[in-house]
């Protein structure tokens, strides 16, 4: 069996796996900040999950470490709820509605829009996260190791499994949702294709052979005329020369007689 024959089923499987991964990602850590001393001992650990925000554990009580605790700003929980709703609905639609056997183009279209919304929601979360959580805290994306020589500490920053899963979720969900959208669009365009006879007529009318022949004829005629004119001009010139010669000869003859 060729790949393309089963490709849609495979994309659908990817889509469902992608949605599940995205769902799981909401409960995992999206980013972490760790402060360690020279010996590698953990002094502070901050993790961010999309539902709970920043969660900090201080392993050493010191006010110096407070500057490394990120501000507790987070993406609205409502966004996460919307995403959960979209994910669950998309899984249900994908499982119970097959675009291949759809009976109604409108339903297929609305399903594809729903899938696309879910996919865009994922990408929205991926983009919003650094702007809302990381950049205001001057935390680097996707991660960095910073050494503070004054305090003899090393700060480790990096994206967590949650964020990686969200990205993976997008890569897995995008193909199927886009495929469904493309199919629905192609059918919509196809239903707008004009009648066959009109199309054939348009093809025939697209080239005007009569006009092209007429243009060539006109060119040939102009060329012919110019040749005639040149020929006539040449004859007149010859006559003129002959006449001039005749006049000179007559004058010379008269002189000789005198």
């Amino acid at each position, binding site marked *: 069996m060729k790949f*393309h024959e089963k490709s849609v089923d495979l994309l659908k499987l990817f889509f469902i796996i992608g949605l599940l991964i995205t769902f799981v990602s909401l409960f995992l850590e999206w980013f972490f900040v760790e402060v360690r001393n020279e010996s590698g001992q953990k002094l502070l650990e901050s993790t961010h999950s999309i539902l709970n925000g920043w969660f900090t554990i201080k392993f050493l009580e010191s006010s110096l470490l407070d500057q490394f605790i990120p501000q507790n700003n987070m993406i609205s929980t409502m966004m996460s709820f919307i995403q959960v709703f979209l994910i669950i609905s998309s899984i249900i639609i994908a499982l119970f509605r097959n675009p291949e056997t759809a009976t109604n183009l409108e339903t297929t279209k609305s399903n594809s829009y729903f899938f696309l919304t879910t996919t865009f929601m994922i990408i929205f979360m991926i983009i919003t996260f650094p702007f809302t959580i990381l950049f205001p805290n001057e935390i680097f994306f996707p991660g960095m190791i910073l050494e503070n020589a004054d305090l003899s500490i090393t700060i480790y920053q990096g994206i967590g499994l949650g964020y990686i899963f969200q990205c993976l979720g997008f890569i897995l969900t995008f193909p199927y949702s886009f495929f469904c959208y493309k199919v629905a669009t192609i059918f919509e365009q196809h239903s707008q294709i004009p009648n066959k006879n009109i199309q054939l007529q348009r093809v025939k009318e697209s080239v005007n052979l009569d006009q092209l022949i007429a243009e060539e004829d006109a060119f040939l005629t102009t060329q012919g005329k110019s040749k005639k004119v040149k020929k006539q001009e040449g004859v007149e010139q010859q006559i003129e020369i002959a006449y001039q010669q005749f006049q000179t000869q007559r004058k010379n003859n008269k002189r000789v007689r005198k």
Partner: protein
Amino acid sequence: MGMNSIDQKYETLVEKCIMTGNHAKLSATTLHLISNQADVIGIKLGIGRRNPRKDEFIHHFLERLNRYIIHLGINLIPAEMIKRIKIIETLFSKSRGTLPKTYLKDAIALYYDIRKIRIPEMDQFTRALRRQDYSNTRSFNLFSRSPRNDSSSMVRDLLFDEIEKREREVFSQLQEGINEDVLETALQLKNIRSTLTRNDNRKIPIQGRLKDNPYYLASKNGSGWLVVLGFIIMLGVFETLLIAETIILPNSLEAVGMLMLFFLVSILLLGYLYYNTMKKGRY
């Protein structure tokens, strides 16, 4: 305007252009007529016209037509003809509209060759089939009611047997050469078979409009590449985030510079690969 009339006019134009030495006009017109002929085949098959807005070359369009009908085991347009058209199209665009004399002769010959391909007018036929499929889907909805089972298994087996015999005949006829009527019969048989197909539960599977449609089948071919497209978009998002980061936090430039470059190169490479495959395959 009949084909004879077009032929007469075309012959006149060829003579006149030779007299005036206007090879550019003759090249352009011949290629236009070849394109028109390809369009006619597409329209008759129910696919529609070539899409020049999307830079679809004639040879790409002809390959698309071949893919559309490949399930019948025939090559509607010979590969050799497609190759010739490809050469002519390439030379035409490279020489900015004037074909060298040898290729001009070949282009004229090609126009007459492509005219020899006779296609049954499938548009009405496919539209009728779509309606039929549509009604099938409604009648045999798995969720609403149990499937109707009017014909006995014996009749079904007999029908299948008859269809198989006819398919074998048609296949051997198609191997000898493409015939308008035979081609139409082959397509009809294929559809009758798919309508009659039943699964093990003796339920008639939903013959959805999408599943049987050639556009859908054609678009399935390139669906694997959508994973690559998704990957490119993801890399693009990362690149944008890194650019934004370097603007908001300029200190990060030194650290993420290489990463940005890596993403950019990856986007360009994958984008080029994707674009080329899509252009070549016309998915």
